[in-house]
């Protein structure tokens, strides 16, 4: 499927998806409530068949947090980027996709560890790199560590 067909298809499945300018990939802003169902249909529908989640990125946009999903189809070779906002900074949460793409289980734990975004229904949501009793989430922009971060 080329990008134009893919765009039409995406908007049929999820009319609330909002296209974002990106030179390399077709990318969309996805509202967080319909996200899980949308992701599942992208994976399972025969003409999209996005079976390869090759990058999962936590983002701190300043006013909100979010997650960026880079998806590819090994069958057709097309690619798509989904951006999901995770709500406010105090209680950010997104539905997990770890049952759709199994690699997400680890990557979501990493995002939880470093950004503090909770993934609903995740089977084993714990910190992955830092200790259990670590205070704060280091990759957030407002994280303060007076000892190790040198401001220039």
């Amino acid at each position, binding site marked *: 499927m080329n990008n134009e067909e893919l765009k039409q298809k995406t908007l049929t499945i999820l009319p609330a998806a909002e296209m974002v300018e990106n030179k390399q990939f077709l990318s969309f802003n996805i509202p967080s409530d319909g996200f899980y169902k949308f992701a599942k249909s992208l994976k399972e529908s025969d003409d999209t068949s996005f079976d390869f989640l090759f*990058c999962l990125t936590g983002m701190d946009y300043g006013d909100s947090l979010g997650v960026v999903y880079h998806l590819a189809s090994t069958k057709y070779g097309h690619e798509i980027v989904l951006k999901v906002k995770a709500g406010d900074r105090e209680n950010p949460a997104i539905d997990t996709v770890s049952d759709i793409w199994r690699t997400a289980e680890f990557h979501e734990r990493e995002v939880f560890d470093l950004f503090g975004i909770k993934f609903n229904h995740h089977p084993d949501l714990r910190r992955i790199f830092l200790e259990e009793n670590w205070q704060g989430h280091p990759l957030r922009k407002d994280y303060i560590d007076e000892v190790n971060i040198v401001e220039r």
Partner: protein
Amino acid sequence: MADLLEEIEQQEYHINMGPQHPSTHGVLRLVLSLKGETVKSIEPHCGYIHRGIEKMCEKLTYPQIIHLTDRLDYLSAHINNGAVCLLVEKALDIEVPERVKYIRTIMDELNRIASHQLWWCSFGMDLGGLTCFFYGLRDREPILDIFEETTGGRLLQSYYTPGGLMKDIHPNFQKRVKDFIKYFRKILPEYDQLLTGNVIMQNRTKGIGMLSKEDAISYGVTGPSGRGSGFNCDVRKRHPYHLYDKVNFKEITRTEGDSFARYKVRMDEMWESMSIIEQLIDNIPEGDFSVKMKPIIKLPEGEYYQRVEASRGEFGIYVVSKGDKFPYRVKLRSPNFSNLSAINQIANGQKIADLVAIGGSLDFVIPDIDR
């Protein structure tokens, strides 16, 4: 007594493998749940050498980031640096000279051979064959010497820069690379004689550590480990960079999906890498080794993703720029982290002694997992 033994055999118990274990090749802790000798589940504990490279990148300029990316998977230092350089060049629309592309492709492939040699020798050592270790390190030495002569570094070179290379190749470079290829073409069949045909080695790898193609895709297992399961994931073929669309080489895939398939893919890749180098080494065109870049590199606002085929899989770098000289966010998609996520799936139900062979066939580099 017999009752007691029976009761113990029925119980599940946990042991720690690592963080200081010779076969994890770094500080990785695997908590194993065992029933008798059978592995029931594996829980990896990472982060012993988490350095926060993604956070550090947010305070560094693009040429400075290069010095951190070669410290991720230190055995594919050139290849990782190539990803940063390609990303900056793509964002700024810079076309690097042909000479740079040739040298980068040759260096990448030399790096891949050196990495696979080290994997082979440590894999043999994991299985108890110490001779392999000496063979592998002996034959890796000429590559490190070639790197040292041109770049000054043996393990971490930081040789690529946005827009080209740090400096031109050494006058001896072509001759030494050709000598090495001639030598290694003779030596590589010896590797097969020593280890590949060995009955003990085959019994410990064939049919053990199965990973199906669907699971490989779902877990994002790329590189030789993914290709051993029949997943066509070679970035050099799917999204060519450098000169990979101009050279002839085969994408090695196997369909068995066991430890032996992953082993064979890497062995065959060394032949392909040598063939790529041979196609290029005599034809390096004259020209500049770098284009003139502005002293301060600022990427235009936007998002960029660049992937390369590192020796362990797809290495990706995702940069969000706000038009500053520092990136706003850098995500490093490291192949080993995704490959590690599949270890529970692969080793489940296997014997604990085979776990060492499975870990060896997946070829983890721990700093790449922890970042």
